[in-house]
């Protein structure tokens, strides 16, 4: 660099300086400056963009929290095990959070006072025993498991130090024993051990959606109420009551007595936990004549006008088939049905033939366990070799043991137009796609309705009558198969009814195990005297509840629809 003379002054010096920084140095400076500007501009743009966005977030769209909130998943209460409800949404089983009370004895200041006050607050706590435990050296003692919210509040109010709560899940059955055999119960680990709880164990554990049963808890209550009243008055050892929708196969009520509280299943004897309606299998007695008669009418081997000679008992092998309500004469088919003639039914079945009879009972599902959503299902007991004698006894309900629920489902098929629907405990939304198999023709079904109405109008089931509901049905009285043959004193008395007979909506079964005759039943313990009145009372109470329109039984159209002549004409002349 060359320095100019002082005489040139600053102007010259500046000129010189401008002049001097020329060439390569100047270019480097320019490039540096340009780059700096560019970088600065880029940073400024980036900064401004961020600033703009920040301002946007903070000021302009700052109120858009609704959008943000919808993205934040709300936590839902997880019951861990789905609820079980009846068909109207009434809760039957639910899981509740409960608090279990425990104490750290080291932290309890005055064990005596604490024990005394806790014993006053909570039931079934022994103050002296609790005091001893609170004085121990342990750091953890249970005081009371599964407190109710109210009890928890009361304990909190005591304000005792050293007490704490452990949260636990507990299955609660709000209706107690009312639907115990159907809903079942769970064990301490909340796994189903019986009933629906066990059958749908996995589904219940995996879903939060409640399971809706076909049961109607109000009907269930009525059935249980009337059944236990009948059990009390006839000193029966057990009872079964079932109400089924005749069209869909849905079970509206199913009671087995004695029953138990599913909240404390361990305290119940095994007999009470036994579901007689599905697990028990019984020789049903005369109610089976429904199926014998239907089979004969449907195959054409008998008509409503034909008849059989029931004058003399039948002797076959070591058996004698006799009539309980013996008429000792020729009986028409309607008479055989209404007087419940064993001789007539046996002859009717023989006419039908061993193979046909067996095949018909098979088509009704009597040879295999009922397809029901319960783990407690009894397998029927059928004879290994089906001979003529078996056909004759099974014709009136002895020699083939089935579960009561199967009889109800099969009876529904006899009166609903001939369609057998598998029984179900799950609510059905509609009939579409649920049609079962046809087992008899609509004509035979119409004839069976007439015959079953006849039983209540004039036959063995008069006590089942309900004004306005045109009950029809069949009585059954079976001798229990005990050690060394049948016991004539131990009866299984039943009545299977359906109403209204003009267009059956519901099938009702009442069955009493070993009822004893009373003064009111004129000393009788048969189905017509002990079970039919119970069916009558049940129908009377549930008919209006279920919205069944009363039918005027005296209306000419109804009379005509249900009329059947009991008078045997030509055949009687032919035999005399």
């Amino acid at each position: 660099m060359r320095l100019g003379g002082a005489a040139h002054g600053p102007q010259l010096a500046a000129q010189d300086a401008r002049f001097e920084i020329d060439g390569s140095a100047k270019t480097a400076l320019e490039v540096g400056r340009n780059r700096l500007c560019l970088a600065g501009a880029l940073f400024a743009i980036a900064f401004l963009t961020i600033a703009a966005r920040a301002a946007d977030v903070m000021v302009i769209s700052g109120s858009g929290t609704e959008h943000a909130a919808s993205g934040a998943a709300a936590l839902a209460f997880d019951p861990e095990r789905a609820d079980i409800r009846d068909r109207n949404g009434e809760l039957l089983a639910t899981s509740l959070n409960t608090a279990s009370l425990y104490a750290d004895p080291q932290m309890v200041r005055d064990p005596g006072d604490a024990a005394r006050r806790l014993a006053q607050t909570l039931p079934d706590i022994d103050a002296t025993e609790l005091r001893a435990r609170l004085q121990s050296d342990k750091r953890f003692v249970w005081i009371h498991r599964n407190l109710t919210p109210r009890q928890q509040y009361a304990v909190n109010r005591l304000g005792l130090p050293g007490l704490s709560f452990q949260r636990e899940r507990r299955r609660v059955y709000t209706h107690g024993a009312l639907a115990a055999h159907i809903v079942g119960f769970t064990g301490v680990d909340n796994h189903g051990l019986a009933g629906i709880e066990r059958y749908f164990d996995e589904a219940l554990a995996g879903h939060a959606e409640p399971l809706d049963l076909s049961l109607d808890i109000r009907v269930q209550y009525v059935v249980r109420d009337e059944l236990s009243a009948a059990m009390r008055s006839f000193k029966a050892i057990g009872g079964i009551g079932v109400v089924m929708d005749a069209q869909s196969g849905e079970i509206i009520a199913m009671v087995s007595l004695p029953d138990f509280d599913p909240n404390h299943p361990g305290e119940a004897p095994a007999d009470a936990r036994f579901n007689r309606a599905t697990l028990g299998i019984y020789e049903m007695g005369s109610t089976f004549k429904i199926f014998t008669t239907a089979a004969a009418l449907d195959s054409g081997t008998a008509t409503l006008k034909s008849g059989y000679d029931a004058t003399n008992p039948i002797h076959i092998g070591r058996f004698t088939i006799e009539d309980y309500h013996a008429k000792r004469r020729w009986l028409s088919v309607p008479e055989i049905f209404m007087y419940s003639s064993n001789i007539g039914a046996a002859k009717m079945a023989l006419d039908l033939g061993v193979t046909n009879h067996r095949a018909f009972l098979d088509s009704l599902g009597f040879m295999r366990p009922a397809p029901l959503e319960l783990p407690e299902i009894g397998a029927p007991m059928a004879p290994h070799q089906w001979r003529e004698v078996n056909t004759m006894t099974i014709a009136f309900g002895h020699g083939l043991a089935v579960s009561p629920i199967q009889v109800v489902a099969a009876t529904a098929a006899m009166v609903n137009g001939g369609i057998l629907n598998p029984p179900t405990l799950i609510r059905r939304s509609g009939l579409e796609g649920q049609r079962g198999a046809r087992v008899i023709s609509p004509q035979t079904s119409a004839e069976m309705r007439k015959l079953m109405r006849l039983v209540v109008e004039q036959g063995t089931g008069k006590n089942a009558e309900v004004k306005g509901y045109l009950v029809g049905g069949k009585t059954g009285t079976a001798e229990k198969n005990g050690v060394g043959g049948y016991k004539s004193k131990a009866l299984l008395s039943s009545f299977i009814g359906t109403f209204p007979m003009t267009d059956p909506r519901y099938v009702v079964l009442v069955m009493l195990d070993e009822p004893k005759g009373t003064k009111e039943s004129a000393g009788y313990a048969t189905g017509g005297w002990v079970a039919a009145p119970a069916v009558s009372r049940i129908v009377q109470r549930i008919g209006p509840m279920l919205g069944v329109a009363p039918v005027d039984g005296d209306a000419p159209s109804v009379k005509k629809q249900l009329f059947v002549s009991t008078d045997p004409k030509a055949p009687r002349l032919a035999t005399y």
Partner: protein
Amino acid sequence: MIRRSTVLFLVLAAAIGFGLFKLTFEVQGLETELHRLNRAILAEDEAIHVLDAEWSYLNEPTRLEALAKRHLALRTANETRMRTLADLPGRGNDVVPVAKPGTPWPSGTDVQPALTKSRPKP
């Protein structure tokens, strides 16, 4: 010129820094609120669940029947109490006579009008 833009950017940066600071606090506050609300919803859900169970328990038919017997003068409905809409007068089917007050109930039943009975004291 450079000095002026520097000042501008510094002010802008300070403003935005302050804004972001506030925003962070606001978000934290909202998150706390969300958490609190979620917990409250859970608690309410659980309370509803317990109340559902209690409602069901209190609706036990045995209990309701006992209460109804004690406090109400109602009887079990029977078939005489059921009519179809078509039976109502003024529906084009006036064949069914309308019962005047004081007329006895249809024969064949032992049911008396509930209102004529003296109400039992609770």
